[in-house]
């Protein structure tokens, strides 16, 4: 137990980095997901193909592989950014594919008449997506997106493997000093669990609040 308490500042530092990465990459993933789903359900064949290829590619590669490729590959082609920034961008692009798929299932759950009615009124495809289809689609996928948020939180720990000192890396460093893996990683695990529990609580509240009578 003292192994944990003696190193609280390091844990705290790691947790802060984890939370920053989670927040930043979730915002990025949401933006990516919105753009991709708009392309994928839209009327332009080229964009649909691009979006499909994007989703299939990113979903079919392990995040760790993408992280390693980005961290070691991007400097080779002259793109240099901080480790944490690189990890945030990679996680955002990766989780964006999952968010796009969750949103797409939401769009498919909305009756096609909703979009037709919007377009029949003269709204462009983009306007009907933005004002009619997506607001309703989002309400039906609050829970799956909450799950993606939790998975994303856990996935930030993979950044430890490319040198970002977030919660898992911090725990690992402490363990190298103290050699007490069980209390140290149980402590780190509890911190992740607390973040996930908060996310679950928020999605539950959101889901009830956004429910639409149909």
């Amino acid at each position, binding site marked *: 137990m003292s192994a944990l308490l003696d190193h609280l500042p390091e844990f705290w530092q790691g947790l802060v980095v984890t939370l920053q990465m989670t927040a930043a990459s979730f915002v990025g993933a949401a933006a990516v997901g919105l753009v991709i789903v708009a392309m994928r359900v839209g*009327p332009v064949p080229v964009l649909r193909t691009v979006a499909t290829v994007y989703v299939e590619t990113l979903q079919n590669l392990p995040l760790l592989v993408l992280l390693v490729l980005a961290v070691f590959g991007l400097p080779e082609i002259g793109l240099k950014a901080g480790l944490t920034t690189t990890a945030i961008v990679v996680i955002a692009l990766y989780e964006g594919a999952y968010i796009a798929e969750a949103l797409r299932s939401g769009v498919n759950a909305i*009756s096609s*008449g*909703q979009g*037709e*009615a*919007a*377009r*029949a*009124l*003269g*709204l*462009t495809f983009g*306007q009907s997506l933005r*004002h*009619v289809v997506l*607001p*309703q689609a989002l*309400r039906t996928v609050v829970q799956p997106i909450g799950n993606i948020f939790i998975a994303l939180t856990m996935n930030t720990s993979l950044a430890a493997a490319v040198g970002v000192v977030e919660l898992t890396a911090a725990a690992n460093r402490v363990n190298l000093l103290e050699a007490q893996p069980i209390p140290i990683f149980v402590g780190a695990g509890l911190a992740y669990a607390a973040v996930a529990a908060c996310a679950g609580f928020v999605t539950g509240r959101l889901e009830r609040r956004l429910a*639409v*009578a*149909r």
Partner: protein
Amino acid sequence: MIRVRGLNKWFGEHHVLHDVDLDVARGEVVVVIGPSGSGKSTLCRCLNRLEAADSGEILVDGVPVPEEGRALARLRADVGMVFQNFNLFQHKTVLENVMLAPMKVRGVSRAEAERTAHELLARVGIAEQAGKQPARLSGGQQQRAAIARALAMRPKAMLFDEPTSALDPEMVGEVLDVMTGLAADGMTMVVVTHEMGFARRAADRVVFMDGGRIVETGEPNAFFDSPSTDRARDFLAKVLTH
């Protein structure tokens, strides 16, 4: 106002519209009737290009219906449509349903859109339902709200795709009354329906379709009293006897 020439449409192998020609004059009310699967709904949906025809031309107010994009959206803004299943936006109140398109498409201010919306809801007789979610309304009220939503765009013409087919019998009348009022006010209307009483009462012209073709067209009294084709006679015998 609407001019259709040589319209053909296939769903896969199925030839749903077969060389259809149709003219609708300004202020005219054309009621399209015919058995299920005769292509009448598809014809209606082709007029604002919710369905793309495979060949033929459609002109609205002298302008060919654009294939896609903003030009198509502009045309649709001028042609109101009322659906069988109402298709009110479920996440918005009745009032917001009516306000949305004028604000987003016409750039009308919120205050003006709201004033117009209240006027239109009063006109279709559901002023007191303005603040409710669509799902809280009866079918007849929802369809009247949908008509108000279409009217809010001040359309040059209105398309009705079986507007009363999803309604309980006791609610059909209230929707038809609103439509009869519109017709009397001089709105150009294309109405696909099974309501023969409405056709007789409100139509300037009845168009009878069967098998993807327009089989017969005529002034309502003449059509209902003495149809000139066997198929129309056959159809009327079936729908008017019960």
